[in-house]
């Protein structure tokens, strides 16, 4: 897993008993441009937000490189299951072969038999140790995972320049002068250096979103998550935002993009995920997904959007 910038494993998420993610796993490798498509309510945004823990998954784990960001999910670790009392009790009844052990683990997973409090000291110790060796503070993990939102979410009480420099300065990654310098050169890159001292409310949607993108860039991210970056824009402003994202893609930035812009997805994606009902139903290159879809749900989806 060494070249995975982000991995999610067996994610489940429910809001008030309504389940949104039903067991999603995927890895984001360095240099990949992963595009996530699917109908509304399919869990795309929820999955994306789980990747930097803006939403805590109900079950499952989120990893940032070698570090665990969520609590340990014992069902993902057979060796932890094997240390539990439940396993030992069930295993005693079998013939004791390795095969039987595997079956027991599978049964425990399937029937959700673990009860945190009754699994004995060995199990608790394993859980604790695993967490201790792998856990990383979420705030630290997020520093180099950029995120761009549907509604831009620029800080309304700060100027454009302060929007770009707040985090680097607050987190003591840069001095004020360095942060200002980086911010100005990023603004110059998108041709908005004259807006540095304006407040976000004076900008157009396209300008806001491009500034939101360079706000992510100001943290020197290893990967950027885009959550429907053009869905809230006037049609005439979609182009300028997509052009900037394309430019980053060409520079080799790793990105995960949730979008409804199928044409753009096709052009920029190195891998496409199709989601529905809280699951990844199909995964492949953009040629495979758009030109040779295999699952029926994807075929109907594409026939409606293309």
């Amino acid at each position, binding site marked *: 897993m060494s070249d995975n910038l982000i991995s999610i494993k067996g994610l489940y998420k429910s809001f008030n008993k309504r389940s949104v993610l039903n067991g999603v796993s995927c890895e984001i490798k360095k240099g990949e441009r992963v595009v996530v498509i699917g109908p509304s309510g399919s869990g795309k945004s929820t999955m994306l937000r789980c990747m*930097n823990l*803006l939403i805590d998954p109900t079950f499952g784990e989120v990893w940032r490189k070698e570090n665990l960001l969520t609590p340990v999910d014992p069902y993902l670790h057979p060796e932890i299951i094997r240390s539990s009392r439940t396993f030992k009790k069930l295993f005693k009844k079998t013939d004791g072969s390795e095969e039987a052990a595997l079956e027991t683990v599978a049964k425990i997973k399937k029937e959700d038999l673990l009860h945190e409090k009754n699994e004995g000291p060995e199990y608790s110790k394993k859980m604790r140790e695993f967490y201790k060796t792998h856990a990383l503070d979420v*705030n*630290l993990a*997020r*520093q*180099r*995972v*950029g*995120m761009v*939102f549907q*509604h*831009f*979410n*620029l*800080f*309304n*009480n*700060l100027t454009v320049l302060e929007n770009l420099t*707040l*985090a680097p300065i*607050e*987190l003591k990654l840069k001095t004020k002068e360095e942060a200002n310098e980086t911010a100005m050169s990023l603004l110059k890159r998108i041709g908005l250096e004259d807006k540095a001292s304006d*407040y976000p*409310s*004076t900008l157009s949607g396209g300008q806001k979103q491009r500034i*939101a993108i360079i*706000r*992510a860039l100001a*943290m020197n991210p290893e990967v950027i998550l885009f959550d429907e970056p053009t869905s809230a824009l006037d049609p005439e402003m979609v182009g300028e935002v997509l052009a900037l994202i394309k430019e980053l893609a060409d520079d080799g930035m790793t990105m995960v993009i949730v979008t409804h812009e199928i044409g753009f997805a096709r052009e920029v994606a190195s891998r496409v995920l199709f989601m529905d009902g809280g699951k990844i139903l199909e995964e492949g290159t953009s040629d495979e997904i758009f030109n040779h879809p295999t699952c029926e749900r994807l075929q109907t989806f594409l026939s409606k959007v293309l």
Partner: protein
Amino acid sequence: MFAESLGYSLLIAFGAVILGFFIGVVLAVVRIAPKKNIVIKILDKFAQAYITIIRGTPTLVQLLILYNSVLVFFKSMDTNLLVPIIAFGINSGAYMAEIIRSGISAVDRGQMDAGRSVGLPWITTMRKIVIPQAIKTVVPALFNEIITLVKETSVVSVIVLRVNNVQKYDLLGTAEKQGLRTPACYLVYLFAAAILYLAIVLLLTFLQHAIERSLKKNER
């Protein structure tokens, strides 16, 4: 004769506003914080109890309880201006907490998401992004509370204010003292006090509008 007492009334009100605002912000943040660990849960229960008790009992009773507790524990104090400041501050804090909490809830959730997404801790995002925006939306309600508080300081006339062991009076206290001396003019003194309270409130209203205007300028 009202000049000195006007000063004491203003001093008590000013001190109480500062203390109340501080308490209000802290309680509001505790109430709104995600209840992830036991410490926050306990603090939240405490904040709830605080707000319920303070809002549920009269200011006059609170002031008398604090004043008499101080008498019991410290016998006499040469200067006891802090007693009404703390009493009114504690009282106002409960109301300001609810006002600020409503302001925080009104700030778009996306602001917190954006702050967290660049790696800022929850409390930093609160301090730098959410609270400044929340305060902006609650300026009118906050001034309402400040104006109420200024007028409510007239309740201190029931206790004995002391500065360097000399008894002092607030605005209403002075009116009453003078009224006792010359009962024929009691009403005149009361009207004089009323006009001075009104003057303070008008000044505060003016200040409120100036602040609202300057905050709007930032937005456009």
